[in-house]
Structures are given as C-alpha cells and as structure tokens.
C-alpha cells in the first residue's frame, strides 16, 4: 500500500507490509492486559487527547508540550520498518512520525546527558492492565544517547497513513527497529536525558532474560527459546532472524568492541 504511494526511502524495507488488521489486533501492551488481543479489545479506555509530553533532565531547554504542537514541529515521515518481538514473531510496520534526534536537538542535551529515559503513562483508569502488578508501572525504557540520536530511531504518531491506533501505542511511541519490540515504549509521556543508565521495566522484571540493550541477535538465545529464527506474521514457516534485525550495516558500529553476549 505504502509502496504504491511513494518511492521507498533509504530506511525503508521493501518487504511485504503486515496487514493492518493483524498489526492492530496482535499486540503486546501489558497496560491493557497480557493477552495478544487485550489491547485491541480494551484500548478504547485510553484518551490520547489532550496529551502532554514532558522533556527534561540534562537538557538546556526542558519543555512540556502538547502532542499536537509537538507533531506540528516536524515534517511527518514514513518509515517501513521490520519489527521483531523478543517472543519470536515479527511484522513489517509502515510508521508515520519523526526522528527522535530532531526532537532531542530541539531541547539541546547538555554535556552530562549520556542516556535517554522514556516513561509511559501510568493511569489504571485508562490502562486496566495497570490494576495488576505484573510489571512495575509506569513502563520505563531507555537508550544510550548515541542510539537515541541514530537516524533510524523514530517517534511514531501514525501507522499505515492513519493516526496511531491506541493499541499500537498512541499518541506517541518510540520505534527502535534493530532492538526487540519491548524497547519501543508506547504511549510516552516523559522523555528524560540522564547521566546514568536508566532502570528499564523488563530488565528489572527478569534481568537474566531481558537486557538493557536488547539488540536483535540470532546468536544470543533467550534462556527459554532460540532467537535464531522468527515467524513473520502472515507466514506459516519461520525465517532466519538477522543480526540487528537486518539493520547491522547502519547500527553495528554503535557496539564495536562490546561483548554482545554480555550486553544482551
């Protein structure tokens, strides 16, 4: 669909896009519940307007901004990215949004900023899943500053040319295509530049299974399953998983000299 509309950009994959119906009904979004179909079923309770995002921490120009204003600051771009879940399935998602780097440049990180911490909304009234303590709420994710500034790192506000559905992380979500999906935090309300590596939700919940980096890596198995292959949603047979989810040429240099088995 998106391919017919416009030529592919430098960051786009030409692979077949996952049908909208599947991309919006098979989701991990524990704020709504643990089942894959819970988010689509329950996402109506999330109110995405008005929505304010706070950007603070080690920046020269901290700010609090309304989501519509935030969107108006940047020309919205299409990005067709592969998305690989740590559970062993994957999709091809045509996101609409802007590079995180553009937003970070606007707030001017200072020299002490080394990491970016993202915080999702915490409100059990809107997120029924937060009434149970399966995870430590609010959901927190983080990136190293150089990862956050990488041109692939994206803030999505739309999907397949439409406003981002609630179950996919409306109104604003992170997309880091070379990392497992859980890094791409949904429904972000706060972005904080920090000196220290943030404590992230899944790394806290199961430190032996989910690391801070969470780069897609077929050579490092999850303790309970292999990560060597994946099932592309819509396909019956598994396909091989690629290092950095196929983005190695663009991002492998970020990790030169690092033992990726240790920093998984």
């Amino acid at each position, binding site marked *: 669909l998106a391919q017919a509309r416009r030529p592919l950009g430098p960051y786009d994959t030409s692979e077949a896009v996952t049908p909208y119906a*599947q991309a919006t*009904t*098979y989701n991990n979004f*524990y704020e709504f519940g*643990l089942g*894959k*179909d819970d988010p689509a079923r329950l996402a109506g309770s999330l109110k995405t307007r008005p929505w304010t995002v706070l950007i603070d921490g080690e920046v020269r120009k901290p700010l609090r901004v309304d989501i519509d204003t935030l969107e108006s600051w940047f020309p919205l771009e299409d990005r067709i990215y592969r998305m690989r879940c740590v*559970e062993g*399935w994957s999709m091809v998602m045509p996101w609409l949004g802007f590079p995180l780097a553009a937003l970070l440049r606007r707030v001017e990180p200072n020299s002490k900023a080394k990491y970016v911490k993202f915080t999702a909304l915490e409100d059990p009234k809107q997120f029924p899943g937060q009434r149970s303590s*399966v*995870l430590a709420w609010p959901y927190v994710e983080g990136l190293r500053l150089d990862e956050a500034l990488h041109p692939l790192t994206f803030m999505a506000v739309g999907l397949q040319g439409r406003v981002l559905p609630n179950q996919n992380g409306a109104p604003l979500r992170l997309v880091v295509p070379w990392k497992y999906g859980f890094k791409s935090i949904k429904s972000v309300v706060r972005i904080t530049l920090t000196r220290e590596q943030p404590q992230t939700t899944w790394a806290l*919940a*199961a430190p032996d299974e989910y690391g801070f980096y969470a780069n897609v890596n077929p050579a490092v*198995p999850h*303790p*309970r*399953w*292999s990560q*060597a*292959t994946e*099932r592309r*949603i*819509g396909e*019956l*047979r*598994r396909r091989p998983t690629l290092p950095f989810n196929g983005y190695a040429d663009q991002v492998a240099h970020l990790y030169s000299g690092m033992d990726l088995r240790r920093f998984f």
Partner: protein
Amino acid sequence: MKDFPVLSRQGRSEGGTEQARAAPRPAPRRASRPLPWLGPGIVVGGLLPVGGLLLDAVTGALGANPVQRALLQTGQLALALLILSLACTPLRLLTGWTWPARVRKALGLLAFVYAALHFLIYLFDHAFTPGVVLEDVLKRPFVTVGFAALVLLVPLALTSTRDAVRRMGFARWQRLHQLVYVAVGLGVLHYWWGVKKDHTAPLIAALVVAALFAVRLLRQRRARARS
C-alpha cells in the same frame, strides 16, 4: 476397560451392585451405574477440540499467529487431560463414585494424543530440522522438560491395553504407570517456563496437581494407619 485394579475393583463393586439388586440388601450408596455413554462421550468430547482447531485453522480464526495459538491450545489440552486423568482416583476416594475410574484410561490416552500433536506442531514450526530440535531439547530446560514429559507418556500409552497389564503383571505395570506423576510435574514446569510473565494459569495447574497428590497421600497414610 477392566485392566487395572481401580477398574477391576470398580468392576467388582459393580458386580456387587448387581447382586445387591438381585438380593434384598440395599445397594452400596455411591457406586455408579454402568453409564454406557460415558466412555464414548469422553472420547468424542476429548477429540472435539481437534475439530475445532482444524476449523479455526481453515477459517483463519486462530488469529495473526496461528502456529503459536495451535501450540498453546494443544499443550494446554494435553496438560488439562493429564490432570483430569489424575483426578479420577482422588475423586473416587473422596466421593465413593466408581465412574471416574472407568474414564481414566481414555483421559490419559487423550492427553498423550494432544501432547504428541503439540510436539508435531513444534516440529513443523522448526521445519523438522533435527539440529534445531536437538539443540532446543539439550540446551533449553523449557523444551527439555516438555520433551521429557512426552517421552515418559510413550510407554504408558503403549502399555495401556488390558493385555499389557496381564503380560507385565499388575505390580510392575503399576510401578511403570507411576511415571505419570513425573510427567505431570514436568508438564506443569514446562507450562510455567513457557509463559513470559503471567503465571496465573500454570499456577492453577500446579495447585490442582498438588491438591490431587495431597488427597492420595492423605488417603494412603490413613489406610496405613488403619492397617
């Protein structure tokens, strides 16, 4: 179906019931009637989910990740049926009903059928690649315990015939079939390790299994104390 002591005991008690009917003595209160529909009912009912799965697969009702869904459903059915088969004896002990013993073998065999289906789907999912499967079984405890549970069920399924009990002798047959306790434990562990975060369902399975074991142990101890 009268192939192990619970069944033959039940058979005797049924005989007793018939005698009791003939004689003026009152029948034992709880001994179940023959219930001829029970066996076929269990088998047909137990196999219905296979039809459901096939229908869902054809109509696309298995969702975005049908292989995963089929894996989960067959695994859950295998464990549920295995637990049901283990519930027969405690149920008989607690209620005095005899019909649970009559469906125990069918439930156990159905559990084996679903466990085998579960494994087949897993093999299909990994394109029947021996290297991948071997690595999973050897290196990932989650897979190891599930595989071990299935392997333990094989000899039980093979010796589920009346003939096998006769050939083996009841004591040896019974000792062999105590492997089912290990299999159900491994099955619960496999389920526990298979979920990412929400352990509610595996916890319920574990509690039910623990309760069933507790009934057996308490009854055994009481019987020993009495003798």
